[in-house]
């Protein structure tokens, strides 16, 4: 015979097995995962690979990175082909020319100055890759691959390499390191200046990585936290407050997506300019 205490125990154990604290729900949606989550409709499990003990399985962020790269390649190849027939763009090409000319005239030319054409491909690629990544993350049921610290660190390492090789190619290897320390520094301060400049060399790309990662993650976490307010209050009437606030933060996210791509590219250009033209 099933009495009330056994039903109570069964109900409690069921509740405990499915319960998770609020932050688990938020983090579970924001972080990377091994399946593509179209939750009430479908769940696509992604393959698991391991190479020499390192986990290189295909995750959500990897799939969206491939999608972003594919989209970028298709769009840019169409734009490049359109310039073969006529130098005056129209329609689709015109739209992308807006951004390309913006990167060239507002980011590359003022920050790098003379010789900016050599770095323009890298700056354009960085800008559009981050832009596409940020905007892909705003589509429902998708994932933001720029909110993955591994992706942003890799982009920062690439910027670091471009900065160092650009500086060393223009000034020579020893000349580049000599030019790091400003002129007219008293001899006693020199060791301190060298240490400070080396730390500065490494900390600037690190800041680039963390800035992009934290901006993207924080935006999504705020939206999820607002929506989880509905579940905490357990009433539908809160939706009148929660949904407009979440939509407002979503609009802010669109602005932040554009802004962060611009900031990453502009700071990379600035550091390249400082490394290439080292006269303070």
């Amino acid at each position: 015979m099933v009495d009330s205490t056994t039903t109570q125990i069964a109900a409690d154990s069921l509740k405990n097995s499915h319960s998770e604290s609020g932050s688990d729900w938020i983090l579970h949606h924001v972080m990377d995962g091994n399946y593509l989550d179209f939750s009430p409709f479908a769940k696509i499990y992604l393959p698991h690979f391991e190479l020499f003990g390192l986990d290189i399985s295909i995750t959500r962020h990897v799939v969206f990175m491939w999608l972003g790269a594919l989209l970028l390649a298709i769009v840019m190849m169409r734009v490049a082909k359109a310039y073969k027939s006529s130098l005056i763009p129209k329609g689709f090409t015109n739209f992308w020319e807006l951004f390309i000319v913006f990167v060239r005239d507002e980011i590359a030319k003022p920050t790098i100055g003379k010789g900016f054409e050599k770095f323009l491909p890298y700056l354009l690629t960085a800008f559009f890759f981050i832009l596409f990544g940020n905007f892909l993350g705003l589509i429902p049921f998708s994932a933001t691959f720029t909110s993955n610290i591994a992706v942003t660190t890799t982009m920062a390492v690439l910027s670091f390499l471009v900065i160092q090789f650009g500086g060393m190619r223009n000034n020579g290897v020893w000349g580049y390191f000599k030019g790091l320390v400003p002129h007219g520094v008293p001899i006693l301060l020199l060791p301190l200046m060298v240490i400070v400049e080396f730390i500065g060399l490494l900390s600037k790309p690190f800041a680039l990585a963390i800035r992009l990662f934290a901006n993207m993650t924080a935006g999504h976490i705020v939206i999820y936290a607002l929506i989880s307010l509905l579940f905490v209050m357990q009433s539908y009437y809160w939706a009148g407050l929660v949904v407009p606030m979440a939509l407002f933060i979503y609009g802010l996210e669109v602005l932040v997506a554009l802004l962060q791509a611009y900031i990453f590219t502009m700071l990379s250009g600035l550091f390249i300019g400082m490394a290439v033209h080292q006269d303070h």
Partner: protein
Amino acid sequence: MEFASLAAGIGAGLTIIGGALGIGKLAAAAMEASGRQPEAAGTIRTSMIIAAALIEGISLFALVICFILAGK
């Protein structure tokens, strides 16, 4: 580790004070400069947005540490 969430909350609050103060002063200076010379408003606006994104980047460093703490 029972105070980890409390530490995360207090840390985030303190960080936001610093960031908001910085961006507030920046916006005030930008408004004043635009009022003095309305032709330069576009340039001032661009520089203001860049500086605001940099200040926000710093406050997000501390936010990342708060995330790590809150997860403990």
